[in-house]
């Protein structure tokens, strides 16, 4: 085990001579920025399960587009953002309980499998790996054009979120006071839902629809454990997501048996676990002055 990275070290220097690695890093950077920033507010506003639901919608959208012969990205982004906005509009009337959410999204996934079956049986060009690729991502399969598009969309999502950060933070911390101060709480919430949809669709291309939840939740939760101040936390969340992304891609290059999406999610989960265990470790060592409540 120790010998493997040593042998791989000279190879790592030439990592970027492979175009598929360059494209992976380009797309991954955009996705990590978008997911890290959007995820911070998802954890703050307890909308993690909304992200989960939207990633399911991303799966069904992508396979529906494939089944009807369109570009998968059209369905991916279109359906995900549409479902996000629909949830926002319905949510104003009354909060759906978890049984309803679970029902709707189990059915959405079932519908996705239906489209997958249509795609693999009816289309001669269909290949059997389409389902796993949408579910678990295929970052090293991106071409130059889709990598550039993923980077641009990721950066755009990040810029819109940063522009919205102040009112969104205000609305997240105290919605009533924010509304009284003239913050358009409803519109801010709706735009934020669309941003979660965009981030989920972006992430689905890289780590897959099933794993994007880890990229949304883990870096953000780790950042909120480590830092109290919101803007520092926001930056740290994006930084940790980038670290997991770049580290995971490098790891997967060094050890080709590890699929990149596994390496990325494993690193993100490890970062969260480290952040959660850090205070306990300090307490055991005996340097922590604060007594637990």
């Amino acid at each position: 085990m120790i010998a493997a990275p040593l042998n791989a070290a000279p190879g790592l220097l030439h990592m970027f001579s492979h175009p598929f690695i360059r494209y992976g890093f380009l797309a991954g950077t955009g996705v990590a920025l978008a997911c890290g920033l959007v995820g911070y507010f998802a954890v703050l506003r307890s909308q993690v399960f909304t992200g989960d639901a939207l990633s399911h919608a991303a799966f069904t959208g992508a396979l529906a587009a494939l089944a009807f012969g369109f570009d998968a990205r059209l369905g991916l982004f279109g359906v995900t953002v549409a479902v996000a906005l629909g949830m926002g509009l319905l949510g104003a009337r009354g909060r759906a309980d978890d049984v309803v959410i679970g029902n709707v999204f189990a059915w959405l996934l079932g519908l996705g499998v239906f489209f997958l079956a249509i795609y693999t049986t009816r289309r001669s060009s269909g290949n059997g790996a389409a389902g796993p690729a949408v579910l678990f991502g295929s970052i090293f399969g991106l071409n130059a054009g889709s990598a550039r598009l993923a980077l641009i969309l990721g950066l755009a999502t990040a810029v819109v979120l940063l522009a919205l950060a102040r009112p969104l933070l205000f609305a997240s911390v105290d919605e009533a006071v924010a509304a009284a101060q003239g913050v358009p709480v409803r519109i801010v919430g709706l735009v934020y839902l669309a941003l979660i949809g965009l981030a989920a669709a972006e992430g689905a291309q890289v780590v897959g629809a099933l794993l994007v939840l880890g990229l949304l939740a883990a870096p953000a939760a780790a950042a909120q454990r480590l830092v109290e101040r919101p803007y520092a936390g926001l930056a740290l969340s994006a930084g940790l997501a980038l670290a997991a992304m770049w580290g995971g891609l490098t790891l997967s290059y060094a050890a080709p048996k590890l699929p990149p999406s596994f390496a990325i999610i494993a690193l993100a989960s490890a970062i969260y676990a480290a952040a959660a265990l850090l205070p306990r470790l300090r307490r055991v060592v005996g340097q922590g002055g604060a007594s637990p409540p």
Partner: protein
Amino acid sequence: MRGGTAPMPLADVGDLSWSWNIGADLQGLFAYHFMVNAFRAGTIVAIAAAVIGWFMVIRGESFVGHTLALVGFPGAAGATLLGVSATFGFFVFSIAAALIIALLPRGNSVRGFSEESAVVGTVQAAALASGFLFISLYHGFLNGVNALLFGSFLGVTDSQVLTLFVLGAAAVIILALTGRPLLFASIDGDVAAANGVPVRWLSSLFLVLLGVAAAEASQITGTLLVFALLVVPAATAQILTPHPLKSLALAVGLGLGITWAGLTAAYYSPYPVGFFITSFAFAAYLLVRIGQGHPWRRAFQHEAKQAPA
């Protein structure tokens, strides 16, 4: 779930189209042994999942059930990698995860943000990612991914049916024995504890039973679609009647109906069983929810309330 021995039904398509001659169609359904096994397994799973799911919905633990099913995925994929039956992997991982959740200290939310859902999300993603790792280490298994995630009824062996039966029956019997105090503890934990019901112990036991039910349901619906058999029959039955025993029986009936209809539809069509089971379940739930808000029903309830007075 998969097995090389099962005859593929695609060879003679002539026998396999739905003719609306119900008797002949039903005979055709059971012409193959693998289909008989699928119905046996489906029946066992539907009953166990509906009974345990009924308590799960009352206790508000739907997402715990979902998480336990997701944890079964790396178990099943890992078992396949090691050359063991996927059924074994489902049960070991789901029950182990249930034990771990039961042993963890109850979350005291000291910090302001909603970390719990973030932790659940991270655990789910990590479990799915590990399952994906095992699958990619096991080459040539890509069609198996869909079977594990979205269910399959092909190639259920006799020994798998026996495993499902023994574990499902054990779980239902344990639940029947502890049902009364468990219901008490689920509805009002504090009063139950004051009356000497071992609330903490019962909730840990129930988590293990839930692990069994999640693993059983994963066999038919796949890891991702367990909601269709675990939640929907129970939630639908509880809308229809508030009486515990009646709604429990109704949940079992609904679960059986959804499973049998789903298996039949999947047999006579090229589409996967997970799609049909989730669609039938969703349709049943939607019908009941719409019927619940219907003016006729409200008028009927109004009359029923007035009548005894």
